[in-house]
Protein backbone atom coordinates (compact mmCIF):
# COMPACT_ATOMS: atom_id res chain seq x y z
CA UNK A 1 0.00 0.00 0.00
CA UNK A 2 1.98 2.95 -1.25
CA UNK A 3 0.43 6.21 -2.35
CA UNK A 4 2.01 8.39 -5.03
CA UNK A 5 3.30 11.82 -4.09
CA UNK A 6 0.32 13.35 -5.88
CA UNK A 7 -2.11 11.35 -3.78
CA UNK A 8 -0.35 12.37 -0.60
CA UNK A 9 -0.35 16.01 -1.67
CA UNK A 10 -4.07 15.97 -2.40
CA UNK A 11 -4.74 14.16 0.87
CA UNK A 12 -2.69 16.45 3.06
CA UNK A 13 -3.63 19.64 1.22
CA UNK A 14 -7.01 18.83 -0.19
CA UNK A 15 -8.37 21.35 -2.68
CA UNK A 16 -11.97 22.51 -2.46
CA UNK A 17 -12.90 21.17 0.95
CA UNK A 18 -16.15 22.56 2.26
CA UNK A 19 -19.76 23.26 1.41
CA UNK A 20 -21.40 25.54 -1.11
CA UNK A 21 -24.35 27.14 0.65
CA UNK A 22 -26.40 27.80 -2.46
CA UNK A 23 -25.18 24.84 -4.50
CA UNK A 24 -26.93 24.04 -7.78
CA UNK A 25 -26.29 20.36 -7.39
CA UNK A 26 -25.40 18.17 -4.41
CA UNK A 27 -24.57 14.49 -4.52
CA UNK A 28 -23.58 12.02 -1.85
CA UNK A 29 -22.35 8.47 -2.44
CA UNK A 30 -20.94 5.66 -0.39
CA UNK A 31 -21.91 4.82 3.16
CA UNK A 32 -20.33 4.78 6.56
CA UNK A 33 -20.50 1.02 6.84
CA UNK A 34 -18.02 0.69 4.05
CA UNK A 35 -15.83 3.44 5.40
CA UNK A 36 -16.22 5.98 2.59
CA UNK A 37 -18.72 8.78 2.08
CA UNK A 38 -18.26 11.55 -0.46
CA UNK A 39 -20.49 14.57 -0.71
CA UNK A 40 -20.06 16.94 -3.65
CA UNK A 41 -21.41 20.47 -4.03
CA UNK A 42 -21.51 22.10 -7.48
CA UNK A 43 -22.11 25.67 -8.56
CA UNK A 44 -23.18 25.62 -12.22
CA UNK A 45 -23.72 28.62 -14.48
CA UNK A 46 -24.60 28.41 -18.19
CA UNK A 47 -23.80 24.72 -18.22
CA UNK A 48 -20.34 25.37 -16.84
CA UNK A 49 -19.12 24.19 -13.47
CA UNK A 50 -18.08 27.41 -11.80
CA UNK A 51 -17.22 25.89 -8.43
CA UNK A 52 -17.00 22.49 -6.78
CA UNK A 53 -16.54 21.60 -3.15
CA UNK A 54 -16.56 18.35 -1.22
CA UNK A 55 -16.71 16.74 2.18
CA UNK A 56 -15.37 13.24 2.52
CA UNK A 57 -15.29 10.65 5.25
CA UNK A 58 -12.78 8.06 4.21
CA UNK A 59 -9.25 6.97 3.70
CA UNK A 60 -6.41 8.93 2.16
CA UNK A 61 -7.35 7.85 -1.34
CA UNK A 62 -10.97 8.88 -0.80
CA UNK A 63 -9.90 12.38 0.21
CA UNK A 64 -7.35 12.65 -2.59
CA UNK A 65 -9.72 11.44 -5.31
CA UNK A 66 -12.39 13.87 -4.06
CA UNK A 67 -9.89 16.68 -4.16
CA UNK A 68 -8.61 15.78 -7.61
CA UNK A 69 -12.09 15.19 -9.01
CA UNK A 70 -13.29 18.63 -7.92
CA UNK A 71 -10.17 20.19 -9.43
CA UNK A 72 -10.71 18.38 -12.70
CA UNK A 73 -14.31 19.41 -13.20
CA UNK A 74 -13.96 23.06 -12.25
CA UNK A 75 -14.42 25.25 -15.32
CA UNK A 76 -15.64 22.30 -17.41
CA UNK A 77 -19.00 21.96 -19.12
CA UNK A 78 -21.38 19.34 -17.79
CA UNK A 79 -20.66 17.14 -20.81
CA UNK A 80 -16.94 17.46 -20.22
CA UNK A 81 -17.36 16.74 -16.52
CA UNK A 82 -19.23 13.59 -17.37
CA UNK A 83 -16.16 12.39 -19.24
CA UNK A 84 -14.10 12.50 -16.04
CA UNK A 85 -14.13 8.79 -15.31
CA UNK A 86 -12.45 7.10 -12.39
CA UNK A 87 -9.60 6.29 -14.73
CA UNK A 88 -9.00 9.97 -15.48
CA UNK A 89 -8.95 10.78 -11.77
CA UNK A 90 -6.54 7.94 -11.07
CA UNK A 91 -4.24 8.93 -13.87
CA UNK A 92 -4.21 12.51 -12.67
CA UNK A 93 -3.10 11.18 -9.28
CA UNK A 94 -0.34 9.01 -10.79
CA UNK A 95 -2.27 5.87 -9.96
CA UNK A 96 -3.74 4.23 -6.89
CA UNK A 97 -3.00 0.94 -5.13
CA UNK A 98 -5.31 -1.81 -6.41
CA UNK A 99 -7.32 -1.96 -3.17
CA UNK A 100 -8.01 1.77 -3.44
CA UNK A 101 -9.33 1.83 -6.99
CA UNK A 102 -12.88 1.86 -5.64
CA UNK A 103 -12.24 5.34 -4.20
CA UNK A 104 -11.77 6.73 -7.68
CA UNK A 105 -14.99 5.02 -8.70
CA UNK A 106 -16.68 6.69 -5.78
CA UNK A 107 -15.34 10.09 -6.90
CA UNK A 108 -16.68 9.55 -10.41
CA UNK A 109 -20.04 8.60 -8.97
CA UNK A 110 -20.12 11.53 -6.58
CA UNK A 111 -19.71 13.91 -9.51
CA UNK A 112 -22.36 12.06 -11.45
CA UNK A 113 -24.74 12.19 -8.48
CA UNK A 114 -24.23 15.93 -8.05
CA UNK A 115 -24.75 16.51 -11.77
CA UNK A 116 -27.84 14.37 -11.71
CA UNK A 117 -29.16 16.41 -8.82
CA UNK A 118 -28.53 19.58 -10.85
CA UNK A 119 -30.34 18.09 -13.84
CA UNK A 120 -33.22 16.93 -11.75
CA UNK A 121 -33.62 20.37 -10.24
CA UNK A 122 -33.53 21.85 -13.72
CA UNK A 123 -35.73 19.32 -15.46
CA UNK A 124 -32.86 18.10 -17.64
CA UNK A 125 -32.99 14.46 -16.59
CA UNK A 126 -32.62 12.17 -19.60
CA UNK A 127 -32.39 8.90 -17.77
CA UNK A 128 -31.87 7.80 -14.23
CA UNK A 129 -28.68 5.91 -14.65
CA UNK A 130 -27.28 7.35 -11.47
CA UNK A 131 -29.20 7.22 -8.27
CA UNK A 132 -26.15 7.82 -6.20
CA UNK A 133 -24.25 4.81 -5.00
CA UNK A 134 -25.60 3.74 -1.68
CA UNK A 135 -23.86 0.39 -1.75
CA UNK A 136 -20.15 -0.11 -1.54
CA UNK A 137 -18.67 0.43 -4.92
CA UNK A 138 -15.82 -1.87 -5.62
CA UNK A 139 -15.10 -2.56 -2.01
CA UNK A 140 -17.88 -4.86 -1.04
CA UNK A 141 -18.17 -6.76 -4.26
CA UNK A 142 -20.65 -4.50 -6.03
CA UNK A 143 -18.27 -4.24 -8.95
CA UNK A 144 -19.24 -2.10 -11.85
CA UNK A 145 -17.69 -3.44 -15.00
CA UNK A 146 -17.54 0.01 -16.55
CA UNK A 147 -14.88 0.94 -14.06
CA UNK A 148 -11.63 -0.74 -14.80
CA UNK A 149 -8.62 -0.65 -12.57
CA UNK A 150 -5.50 0.66 -14.23
CA UNK A 151 -3.61 -2.56 -13.73
CA UNK A 152 -4.92 -6.05 -13.74
CA UNK A 153 -3.76 -7.17 -10.38
CA UNK A 154 -6.46 -9.66 -9.71
CA UNK A 155 -3.96 -12.00 -8.14
CA UNK A 156 -3.21 -9.44 -5.48
CA UNK A 157 -4.64 -9.58 -1.99
Amino acid at each position, binding site marked *: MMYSEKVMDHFLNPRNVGEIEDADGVGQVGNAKCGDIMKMYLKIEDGIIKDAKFK*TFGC*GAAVATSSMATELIKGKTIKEAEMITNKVVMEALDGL*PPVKVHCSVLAEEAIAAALQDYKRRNGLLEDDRYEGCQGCCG*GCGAQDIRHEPLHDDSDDE
Partner: protein
Amino acid sequence: MQKQIIYFDHAATTYVKPEVFEAMKPYFTEQYGNPSSIYSIGRSNRKAVEDARCSVAKSIGAAESSEIYFTGSGTESDNWAIKGAALALQKKGKHIITSNIEHPAVLATCEFLQKQGYDITYVKVNEEGLVNPDDVDKAIRPDTILVTIMMANNEIGTIQPIKEIAQVCKKHGVLFHTDAVQAAGNIPIDVKDLGVDLLSVSGHKFYGPKGTGMLYIRKGVKIESLIHGGHQERNRRAGTENVPGIVGFAKALELANENMEAHYKKLSSLRDKALKGIMERIPYVRVNGSMEKRLPGNLNLSFRFVEGESVLLMLDMKGIKASSGSACTSGSLDPSHVLLAIGLPHEIAHGSLRLSFGEINTEEEVDYLIDSLDEIISKLRNMSPLYEDFTKGV
Protein backbone atom coordinates in the same frame (compact mmCIF):
# COMPACT_ATOMS: atom_id res chain seq x y z
CA MET B 1 9.89 17.44 15.29
CA GLN B 2 8.68 16.54 11.82
CA LYS B 3 11.66 14.40 10.87
CA GLN B 4 12.02 12.47 14.08
CA ILE B 5 10.21 9.17 14.31
CA ILE B 6 7.90 8.55 17.22
CA TYR B 7 6.98 4.92 17.29
CA PHE B 8 3.70 3.95 18.94
CA ASP B 9 3.26 0.65 17.16
CA HIS B 10 5.11 -1.85 19.30
CA ALA B 11 2.27 -4.35 19.01
CA ALA B 12 2.97 -4.57 15.27
CA THR B 13 6.67 -5.16 15.72
CA THR B 14 9.56 -3.99 17.83
CA TYR B 15 13.15 -3.10 17.10
CA VAL B 16 15.77 -5.64 18.14
CA LYS B 17 17.39 -4.50 21.38
CA PRO B 18 21.12 -3.82 21.07
CA GLU B 19 21.91 -6.51 23.69
CA VAL B 20 19.84 -8.99 21.72
CA PHE B 21 21.56 -8.10 18.47
CA GLU B 22 24.94 -8.45 20.16
CA ALA B 23 24.01 -11.92 21.35
CA MET B 24 22.97 -12.93 17.84
CA LYS B 25 25.89 -11.44 15.97
CA PRO B 26 28.58 -14.11 16.34
CA TYR B 27 26.25 -16.71 14.84
CA PHE B 28 26.04 -15.06 11.44
CA THR B 29 29.57 -14.77 10.22
CA GLU B 30 31.74 -16.64 12.71
CA GLN B 31 29.99 -19.40 14.58
CA TYR B 32 27.95 -20.62 11.70
CA GLY B 33 28.10 -24.40 12.00
CA ASN B 34 25.04 -26.54 11.52
CA PRO B 35 23.86 -27.62 14.99
CA SER B 36 23.15 -31.09 13.63
CA SER B 37 26.76 -31.56 12.64
CA ILE B 38 28.96 -33.86 14.59
CA TYR B 39 32.08 -31.72 14.70
CA SER B 40 32.99 -29.14 17.27
CA ILE B 41 31.68 -25.92 15.71
CA GLY B 42 28.41 -27.65 15.00
CA ARG B 43 28.37 -28.91 18.59
CA SER B 44 28.94 -25.45 20.05
CA ASN B 45 25.98 -24.22 18.04
CA ARG B 46 23.96 -27.15 19.31
CA LYS B 47 24.86 -25.95 22.79
CA ALA B 48 23.80 -22.40 21.94
CA VAL B 49 20.43 -23.71 20.77
CA GLU B 50 19.97 -25.92 23.82
CA ASP B 51 20.97 -23.13 26.20
CA ALA B 52 18.41 -20.92 24.49
CA ARG B 53 15.81 -23.65 24.94
CA CYS B 54 16.55 -23.88 28.66
CA SER B 55 16.35 -20.13 29.00
CA VAL B 56 12.98 -19.98 27.23
CA ALA B 57 11.68 -22.85 29.35
CA LYS B 58 12.62 -20.86 32.42
CA SER B 59 11.10 -17.67 31.07
CA ILE B 60 7.69 -19.27 30.62
CA GLY B 61 7.79 -21.64 33.57
CA ALA B 62 7.95 -24.86 31.55
CA ALA B 63 8.76 -28.00 33.49
CA GLU B 64 11.36 -29.13 30.96
CA SER B 65 13.31 -27.52 28.16
CA SER B 66 12.19 -30.37 25.92
CA GLU B 67 8.74 -28.78 25.91
CA ILE B 68 10.09 -25.80 23.92
CA TYR B 69 10.05 -25.99 20.11
CA PHE B 70 11.51 -23.20 18.02
CA THR B 71 9.61 -22.17 14.89
CA GLY B 72 9.84 -19.50 12.19
CA SER B 73 7.07 -17.22 13.46
CA GLY B 74 4.12 -16.80 15.78
CA THR B 75 1.91 -17.60 12.83
CA GLU B 76 3.72 -20.87 12.25
CA SER B 77 3.33 -21.76 15.93
CA ASP B 78 -0.42 -21.10 15.77
CA ASN B 79 -0.78 -23.11 12.57
CA TRP B 80 1.23 -25.97 14.01
CA ALA B 81 -0.68 -26.11 17.28
CA ILE B 82 -4.10 -26.05 15.65
CA LYS B 83 -3.51 -28.16 12.55
CA GLY B 84 -1.23 -30.49 14.47
CA ALA B 85 -3.92 -31.15 17.08
CA ALA B 86 -6.60 -31.42 14.41
CA LEU B 87 -4.68 -34.10 12.50
CA ALA B 88 -3.54 -36.01 15.56
CA LEU B 89 -7.01 -36.16 17.07
CA GLN B 90 -9.23 -36.45 14.01
CA LYS B 91 -10.29 -39.94 15.05
CA LYS B 92 -11.59 -38.54 18.34
CA GLY B 93 -13.53 -35.73 16.71
CA LYS B 94 -13.43 -32.74 14.44
CA HIS B 95 -14.81 -29.96 16.61
CA ILE B 96 -12.66 -26.96 17.54
CA ILE B 97 -13.59 -24.02 19.74
CA THR B 98 -12.09 -20.56 19.37
CA SER B 99 -13.17 -16.96 19.96
CA ASN B 100 -14.35 -14.33 17.50
CA ILE B 101 -11.48 -11.94 18.30
CA GLU B 102 -8.52 -14.17 17.48
CA HIS B 103 -5.63 -13.11 15.29
CA PRO B 104 -5.86 -14.10 11.60
CA ALA B 105 -3.12 -16.69 12.28
CA VAL B 106 -5.75 -18.59 14.28
CA LEU B 107 -8.89 -17.58 12.42
CA ALA B 108 -7.58 -18.34 8.93
CA THR B 109 -6.23 -21.65 10.17
CA CYS B 110 -9.64 -22.53 11.58
CA GLU B 111 -11.30 -21.51 8.32
CA PHE B 112 -8.88 -23.75 6.45
CA LEU B 113 -9.79 -26.65 8.73
CA GLN B 114 -13.46 -25.90 8.28
CA LYS B 115 -13.00 -26.42 4.55
CA GLN B 116 -11.33 -29.74 5.39
CA GLY B 117 -14.45 -30.90 7.20
CA TYR B 118 -13.81 -29.66 10.73
CA ASP B 119 -16.51 -27.89 12.71
CA ILE B 120 -15.56 -24.61 14.36
CA THR B 121 -17.44 -22.87 17.17
CA TYR B 122 -16.66 -19.19 17.70
CA VAL B 123 -17.28 -18.20 21.31
CA LYS B 124 -18.43 -14.58 21.54
CA VAL B 125 -16.72 -11.97 23.69
CA ASN B 126 -18.52 -9.34 25.75
CA GLU B 127 -18.39 -5.60 25.07
CA GLU B 128 -15.04 -5.40 26.89
CA GLY B 129 -13.61 -8.10 24.67
CA LEU B 130 -13.58 -10.82 27.32
CA VAL B 131 -14.31 -14.51 26.82
CA ASN B 132 -16.49 -16.08 29.49
CA PRO B 133 -15.06 -19.47 30.55
CA ASP B 134 -18.63 -20.69 31.07
CA ASP B 135 -19.28 -20.10 27.38
CA VAL B 136 -16.34 -22.34 26.58
CA ASP B 137 -17.70 -24.92 29.00
CA LYS B 138 -21.06 -24.89 27.26
CA ALA B 139 -19.52 -25.07 23.81
CA ILE B 140 -17.55 -28.24 24.54
CA ARG B 141 -19.03 -31.36 22.95
CA PRO B 142 -17.99 -35.00 23.01
CA ASP B 143 -16.23 -34.49 19.65
CA THR B 144 -14.37 -31.35 20.73
CA ILE B 145 -10.63 -31.89 20.28
CA LEU B 146 -9.19 -28.44 20.82
CA VAL B 147 -9.94 -25.07 22.38
CA THR B 148 -7.80 -22.17 21.19
CA ILE B 149 -8.25 -18.78 22.85
CA MET B 150 -5.65 -16.02 22.70
CA MET B 151 -4.01 -14.83 25.90
CA ALA B 152 -4.06 -11.13 24.96
CA ASN B 153 -5.64 -9.45 22.00
CA ASN B 154 -3.48 -7.63 19.47
CA GLU B 155 -5.94 -4.81 18.75
CA ILE B 156 -7.59 -3.97 22.04
CA GLY B 157 -5.09 -5.56 24.42
CA THR B 158 -7.69 -7.50 26.41
CA ILE B 159 -6.21 -10.22 28.61
CA GLN B 160 -8.33 -13.36 28.76
CA PRO B 161 -8.95 -15.57 31.82
CA ILE B 162 -6.63 -18.25 30.43
CA LYS B 163 -6.24 -20.15 33.70
CA GLU B 164 -10.01 -20.51 34.10
CA ILE B 165 -10.45 -21.57 30.50
CA ALA B 166 -7.64 -24.10 30.92
CA GLN B 167 -9.46 -25.54 33.93
CA VAL B 168 -12.63 -25.92 31.91
CA CYS B 169 -10.70 -27.72 29.18
CA LYS B 170 -8.95 -29.95 31.66
CA LYS B 171 -12.29 -30.90 33.23
CA HIS B 172 -13.46 -32.12 29.83
CA GLY B 173 -10.12 -33.61 28.83
CA VAL B 174 -9.82 -31.29 25.85
CA LEU B 175 -6.52 -29.86 24.60
CA PHE B 176 -6.07 -26.14 25.15
CA HIS B 177 -3.91 -23.85 23.04
CA THR B 178 -3.34 -20.16 23.65
CA ASP B 179 -1.83 -17.63 21.28
CA ALA B 180 0.40 -15.67 23.66
CA VAL B 181 2.12 -13.65 20.93
CA GLN B 182 0.97 -10.31 22.37
CA ALA B 183 1.25 -11.40 25.98
CA ALA B 184 4.84 -12.60 25.92
CA GLY B 185 7.24 -10.02 27.24
CA ASN B 186 4.42 -7.78 28.45
CA ILE B 187 2.79 -9.81 31.19
CA PRO B 188 4.13 -12.83 33.10
CA ILE B 189 3.54 -16.23 31.56
CA ASP B 190 3.76 -19.40 33.62
CA VAL B 191 2.58 -22.37 31.59
CA LYS B 192 2.44 -24.67 34.61
CA ASP B 193 0.33 -22.23 36.58
CA LEU B 194 -1.88 -21.45 33.60
CA GLY B 195 -2.32 -25.13 32.87
CA VAL B 196 -2.19 -24.75 29.08
CA ASP B 197 -1.17 -27.57 26.75
CA LEU B 198 0.09 -25.49 23.87
CA LEU B 199 1.26 -21.88 23.78
CA SER B 200 2.52 -19.76 20.85
CA VAL B 201 5.02 -16.91 21.01
CA SER B 202 6.64 -14.71 18.34
CA GLY B 203 10.08 -13.13 18.76
CA HIS B 204 9.61 -9.72 17.20
CA LYS B 205 6.97 -8.58 19.67
CA PHE B 206 9.37 -8.28 22.61
CA TYR B 207 12.48 -6.74 21.05
CA GLY B 208 13.62 -10.02 19.52
CA PRO B 209 14.21 -10.86 15.86
CA LYS B 210 11.57 -11.25 13.17
CA GLY B 211 11.16 -14.71 11.66
CA THR B 212 11.42 -16.46 15.02
CA GLY B 213 8.75 -18.12 17.09
CA MET B 214 8.19 -20.81 19.65
CA LEU B 215 5.57 -23.38 20.43
CA TYR B 216 5.34 -24.79 23.93
CA ILE B 217 4.06 -28.36 23.84
CA ARG B 218 3.37 -29.81 27.25
CA LYS B 219 5.13 -33.14 27.83
CA GLY B 220 2.95 -35.99 26.72
CA VAL B 221 0.85 -33.92 24.30
CA LYS B 222 1.03 -35.45 20.85
CA ILE B 223 0.36 -33.31 17.83
CA GLU B 224 1.22 -33.94 14.18
CA SER B 225 4.10 -31.95 12.72
CA LEU B 226 3.45 -29.03 10.41
CA ILE B 227 6.88 -29.06 8.76
CA HIS B 228 8.24 -32.53 8.05
CA GLY B 229 11.81 -33.43 7.18
CA GLY B 230 15.03 -33.74 9.17
CA HIS B 231 15.48 -34.65 12.81
CA GLN B 232 15.61 -31.13 14.21
CA GLU B 233 13.58 -30.09 17.26
CA ARG B 234 13.29 -33.65 18.50
CA ASN B 235 11.88 -34.79 15.16
CA ARG B 236 8.92 -32.44 15.41
CA ARG B 237 9.87 -29.32 13.43
CA ALA B 238 12.24 -29.93 10.56
CA GLY B 239 14.69 -27.49 9.00
CA THR B 240 18.20 -26.31 9.83
CA GLU B 241 17.96 -24.37 13.07
CA ASN B 242 18.06 -20.58 12.75
CA VAL B 243 20.81 -20.31 15.34
CA PRO B 244 21.15 -16.51 15.54
CA GLY B 245 17.38 -16.21 15.53
CA ILE B 246 16.95 -18.74 18.32
CA VAL B 247 19.68 -17.14 20.40
CA GLY B 248 18.12 -13.71 19.91
CA PHE B 249 14.64 -14.97 20.70
CA ALA B 250 15.77 -16.44 24.02
CA LYS B 251 17.86 -13.43 24.95
CA ALA B 252 14.99 -11.03 24.26
CA LEU B 253 12.54 -13.08 26.31
CA GLU B 254 15.06 -13.32 29.11
CA LEU B 255 15.54 -9.54 29.17
CA ALA B 256 11.78 -8.98 29.03
CA ASN B 257 11.29 -11.25 32.00
CA GLU B 258 13.97 -9.61 34.09
CA ASN B 259 12.56 -6.22 33.26
CA MET B 260 8.86 -7.08 33.42
CA GLU B 261 7.80 -4.95 36.36
CA ALA B 262 9.50 -1.74 35.27
CA HIS B 263 8.30 -2.35 31.71
CA TYR B 264 4.72 -2.77 32.86
CA LYS B 265 4.85 0.35 34.99
CA LYS B 266 6.43 2.52 32.34
CA LEU B 267 4.14 1.45 29.51
CA SER B 268 0.93 1.65 31.47
CA SER B 269 1.82 5.08 32.80
CA LEU B 270 2.50 6.41 29.29
CA ARG B 271 -0.70 4.79 28.12
CA ASP B 272 -2.76 6.32 30.94
CA LYS B 273 -1.24 9.73 30.34
CA ALA B 274 -2.12 9.54 26.65
CA LEU B 275 -5.65 8.42 27.40
CA LYS B 276 -6.24 11.19 29.90
CA GLY B 277 -4.86 13.88 27.58
CA ILE B 278 -6.84 12.72 24.58
CA MET B 279 -10.10 12.42 26.49
CA GLU B 280 -9.66 15.90 27.92
CA ARG B 281 -8.94 17.52 24.58
CA ILE B 282 -10.97 15.64 22.00
CA PRO B 283 -14.74 15.05 22.17
CA TYR B 284 -16.59 11.98 20.87
CA VAL B 285 -13.83 9.48 21.60
CA ARG B 286 -14.43 5.97 22.84
CA VAL B 287 -11.97 3.56 24.45
CA ASN B 288 -12.22 0.02 23.17
CA GLY B 289 -11.58 -3.00 25.37
CA SER B 290 -11.35 -3.56 29.10
CA MET B 291 -9.24 -1.01 30.96
CA GLU B 292 -8.71 -3.43 33.81
CA LYS B 293 -7.65 -6.59 32.02
CA ARG B 294 -5.40 -5.02 29.46
CA LEU B 295 -1.85 -5.14 28.16
CA PRO B 296 0.17 -2.29 29.66
CA GLY B 297 1.13 -0.67 26.37
CA ASN B 298 -2.17 -0.92 24.52
CA LEU B 299 -4.60 1.89 23.81
CA ASN B 300 -7.41 1.50 21.29
CA LEU B 301 -9.58 4.51 20.54
CA SER B 302 -12.46 5.28 18.21
CA PHE B 303 -12.82 8.84 16.95
CA ARG B 304 -16.31 9.39 15.68
CA PHE B 305 -16.90 10.91 12.23
CA VAL B 306 -13.41 10.22 10.91
CA GLU B 307 -11.82 7.30 9.20
CA GLY B 308 -8.80 5.46 10.59
CA GLU B 309 -6.43 5.43 7.66
CA SER B 310 -6.66 9.19 7.31
CA VAL B 311 -5.75 9.61 10.94
CA LEU B 312 -2.81 7.27 10.52
CA LEU B 313 -1.49 9.01 7.43
CA MET B 314 -1.69 12.41 9.05
CA LEU B 315 0.01 11.11 12.18
CA ASP B 316 2.70 9.65 9.94
CA MET B 317 3.25 13.07 8.39
CA LYS B 318 3.92 14.32 11.89
CA GLY B 319 6.40 11.50 12.44
CA ILE B 320 4.05 9.45 14.59
CA LYS B 321 3.74 5.75 13.74
CA ALA B 322 0.58 4.06 14.91
CA SER B 323 -1.85 1.50 13.61
CA SER B 324 -5.48 1.43 12.61
CA GLY B 325 -8.01 -0.53 14.57
CA SER B 326 -9.15 -1.74 11.21
CA ALA B 327 -7.36 -4.21 9.00
CA CYS B 328 -7.35 -1.58 6.27
CA THR B 329 -3.59 -1.53 6.11
CA SER B 330 -3.42 -5.07 4.96
CA GLY B 331 -5.46 -4.38 1.89
CA SER B 332 -8.77 -5.52 3.29
CA LEU B 333 -11.63 -3.06 3.23
CA ASP B 334 -13.56 -4.52 6.12
CA PRO B 335 -13.36 -2.89 9.52
CA SER B 336 -11.69 -4.81 12.33
CA HIS B 337 -13.45 -8.04 13.25
CA VAL B 338 -12.39 -7.41 16.84
CA LEU B 339 -14.10 -4.04 17.08
CA LEU B 340 -17.23 -5.43 15.47
CA ALA B 341 -17.10 -8.34 17.92
CA ILE B 342 -17.22 -5.97 20.90
CA GLY B 343 -20.27 -4.31 19.39
CA LEU B 344 -18.99 -1.23 17.57
CA PRO B 345 -21.04 -0.07 14.59
CA HIS B 346 -19.15 -0.12 11.30
CA GLU B 347 -18.65 3.63 10.96
CA ILE B 348 -17.17 3.89 14.43
CA ALA B 349 -15.02 0.84 13.94
CA HIS B 350 -13.66 2.55 10.81
CA GLY B 351 -12.41 5.47 12.85
CA SER B 352 -10.26 3.52 15.25
CA LEU B 353 -6.66 3.92 16.21
CA ARG B 354 -4.33 1.55 18.02
CA LEU B 355 -1.47 3.07 19.95
CA SER B 356 0.97 0.57 21.42
CA PHE B 357 3.64 2.00 23.63
CA GLY B 358 7.15 0.66 24.08
CA GLU B 359 10.30 1.08 26.04
CA ILE B 360 11.76 3.88 23.93
CA ASN B 361 8.72 6.13 24.29
CA THR B 362 8.79 9.23 26.50
CA GLU B 363 6.30 11.55 28.16
CA GLU B 364 7.25 14.30 25.72
CA GLU B 365 6.33 12.05 22.86
CA VAL B 366 2.96 11.45 24.47
CA ASP B 367 2.40 15.20 24.82
CA TYR B 368 3.24 15.66 21.17
CA LEU B 369 0.85 12.83 20.30
CA ILE B 370 -2.00 14.50 22.17
CA ASP B 371 -1.41 17.84 20.43
CA SER B 372 -1.12 16.19 17.05
CA LEU B 373 -4.23 14.11 17.44
CA ASP B 374 -6.23 17.11 18.55
CA GLU B 375 -5.21 19.00 15.42
CA ILE B 376 -5.70 16.05 13.06
CA ILE B 377 -9.09 14.99 14.35
CA SER B 378 -10.34 18.59 14.06
CA LYS B 379 -9.09 18.85 10.51
CA LEU B 380 -10.65 15.57 9.47
CA ARG B 381 -13.92 16.27 11.19
CA ASN B 382 -14.14 19.56 9.36
CA MET B 383 -13.81 17.60 6.16
CA SER B 384 -16.34 14.94 7.18
CA PRO B 385 -19.91 14.88 5.88
CA LEU B 386 -20.82 12.73 8.91
CA TYR B 387 -19.64 15.43 11.28
CA GLU B 388 -21.51 18.01 9.19
CA ASP B 389 -24.71 15.99 9.56
CA PHE B 390 -24.07 15.55 13.26
CA THR B 391 -23.46 19.24 13.98
CA LYS B 392 -26.47 20.18 11.89
CA GLY B 393 -28.44 17.65 13.87
CA VAL B 394 -29.35 15.57 10.82
